[in-house]
């Protein structure tokens, strides 16, 4: 029996020291200053003398934002009075937003390589503690939240995140959590005045186009943002744009090429991008869900393309499904070949809407049917 215990203990010892070694190996490989995390010159295993609250960017290598846990239930702090219920923290939503700013380290400020360090690893739950330098767990949590939230929420209403427990509820207490966030509104169009330039007094930026038409994600343009630059609706967004005005555009537009200036810098406010008006090719009907790059495959080049379907689509008689045009052909027409209907006067294929009279010739004694050759679908 004794032997068994010893054996188990030994096993523990070995495995733990092995684990330690593994991490410390990772340590040394990282490009980190020792003083970032350690307060003393020579940290040892027993006395790592971890620095208090290192705020330098840690190193979260554990996972990508996409893998972040969805929700955390925070219920491990309790004051003297049990006023509020537990809090469901939308972890993933915050992680995604933080991509536009500081990233995970905005909250996970202390994270040496390895596993993600829990707040409670360092921050004590008991407030009545000896060490007064490090905030306790409750304070740490609240500070992480409120450091940002207080920047745009005018009132620090606890009920924004917490639900009151029954014995503290009043008649006016809301039954559910009030939404913490207001829907972030973005401008449809923004006109920047570029006073210094000789030509092109204004630069019109169509925000809507970029999201809806060009299908960009927020993070594609918005980097190094603070929470309040989007959430604080009172702030004029212009103020949050940094000095180098092209910084947000440069990821897609070539701002160095002088020939390109006039594309944005004009004398008058420009209209939003309209594919039909600008190129004559209407994409609203069939191609509205496409991103620019799905047709304009050559990066950075948006030259005119051949408007023939076949130039992009590899359709033939066999694999074309007529339904995508909005007309599901009925039994009588489904087996026709394309050219049976779509043929212009010169006998060439043309995929414009055909006339029924092309086939059903009244003069030849046929009755022109009143119905469509199939069923309209959406």
């Amino acid at each position, binding site marked *: 029996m004794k032997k068994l215990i010893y054996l188990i203990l030994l096993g523990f010892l070995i495995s733990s020291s092995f684990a330690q070694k593994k991490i410390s190996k990772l340590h040394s490989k990282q490009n980190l200053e020792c003083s970032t995390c350690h307060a003393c010159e020579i940290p040892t295993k027993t006395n790592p003398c971890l620095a208090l609250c290192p705020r330098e960017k840690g190193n979260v290598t554990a996972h990508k934002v996409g893998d972040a846990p969805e929700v955390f239930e925070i219920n491990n702090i309790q004051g003297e009075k049990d006023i509020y219920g537990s809090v469901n923290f939308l972890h993933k939503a915050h992680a995604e937003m933080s991509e536009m700013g500081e990233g995970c380290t905005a909250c996970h400020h202390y994270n040496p390589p390895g596993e993600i360090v829990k707040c409670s690893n360092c921050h004590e739950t008991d*407030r009545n503690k000896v060490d007064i330098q490090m905030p306790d767990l409750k304070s740490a949590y609240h500070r992480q939240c*409120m450091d940002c939230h207080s920047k745009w929420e005018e009132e620090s*209403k606890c009920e924004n995140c917490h639900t009151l427990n029954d014995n503290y509820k009043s008649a006016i207490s809301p039954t559910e959590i009030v939404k913490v966030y207001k829907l972030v509104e973005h401008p449809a169009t923004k006109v920047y005045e570029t006073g210094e330039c000789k030509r092109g007094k204004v630069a019109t930026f169509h925000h809507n186009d970029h999201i809806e038409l060009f299908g960009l994600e927020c993070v594609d343009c918005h980097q190094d943002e603070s929470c309040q630059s989007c959430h604080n609706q009172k702030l004029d967004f212009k103020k949050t744009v940094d000095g180098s005005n092209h910084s947000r555009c440069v990821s897609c537009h070539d701002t160095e090429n002088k020939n390109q200036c006039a594309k944005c810098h004009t004398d008058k406010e420009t209209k939003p991008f309209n594919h039909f008006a600008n190129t004559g090719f209407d994409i609203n009907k069939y191609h509205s869900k496409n991103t620019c790059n799905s047709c304009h495959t050559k990066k950075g080049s948006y030259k005119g393309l051949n408007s023939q379907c076949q130039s992009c689509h590899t359709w033939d008689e066999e694999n074309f499904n007529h339904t995508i045009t909005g007309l599901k052909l009925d039994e009588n027409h489904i087996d026709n070949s394309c050219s049976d209907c779509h043929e212009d006067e010169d006998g060439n294929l043309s995929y414009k809407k055909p006339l029924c009279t092309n086939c059903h010739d009244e003069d030849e004694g046929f009755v022109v049917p009143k119905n469509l050759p199939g069923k309209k679908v959406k």
Partner: protein
Amino acid sequence: MSQNRRDFLKTFAAIGTTAATLTAVSPKVAKASSRGELSVDRNGVLVDTTTCIGCGKCEWACKTAHHIEPGNIEDYSTKLTDGSQRRPSEDALTVVNQIDKSVMNSDKVKLQCMHCDHPACVSACIVGAIKKQENGAVTWDTDVCIGCRYCMIACPFQIPAFEYHKALDPKIAKCDFCYDRTQEGKLPACAEICPVGALTYGTREELVIEAKRRIEKNPEKYHDHVFGEHEVGGTSWLYLAENSLVETVFPKLGTNPAPGVSESIQHGLFAYFVPPVALYALLGGVMWLSKTKENEGGH
């Protein structure tokens, strides 16, 4: 005045003896000074106004701990938004104000008794109802107070409040540093509930060090001054803030203990009862001399 001179002398001697006895006794009386020994371990609270979010939970907890009807807990966060600069009162021993309402995220300052190291109220109190406790708290004793409100005159921070509208048993109301709670080893109610830990409870000595550490670490975040470290001889409650709190929140005060001058005068006038006894002797002398003259004139 029909007594003769021997009588006069006899009585005078008796008075002299009484005075001497009083003189001998007086050091004991004079020792009951507010500048008595201060405990090194006395506690305090460091208020970091840059951390405070103005949720008002401390106000709620304070009322609950002091049996003042707290009302609805959800209403507290809105109290800041009306922009008024409230004062601690008999209905709220502590209040949180936002200094500058026009700046959205500006510092919020919690106000309550500062628990001075040399409290003017303790020195002033006619019956000694206010005491500086060993743990730093300045407390008030219901059973002793006569309601003269001299403490309110004396307090440099204008903190003590009075229940003017009670005919019987009106009380002086001020923060007592949750003396009962701290005696049980609990934290003061406000420091216990503060969600962001803007109130740090600890020994005053440690807190001063911690405050300076924070300033050193974040010099652009803090105004380089720990309010309360030296003001009126030091207070148990210490404040860190982004801007100077003097004249926006607190009056401009020197570093001398508030009761200093008053006590020196008082002790000067009554130094071991010498001046009063001397005056008595002098007047007695004058009376005796003028009487002698009169007697001589009469014979």
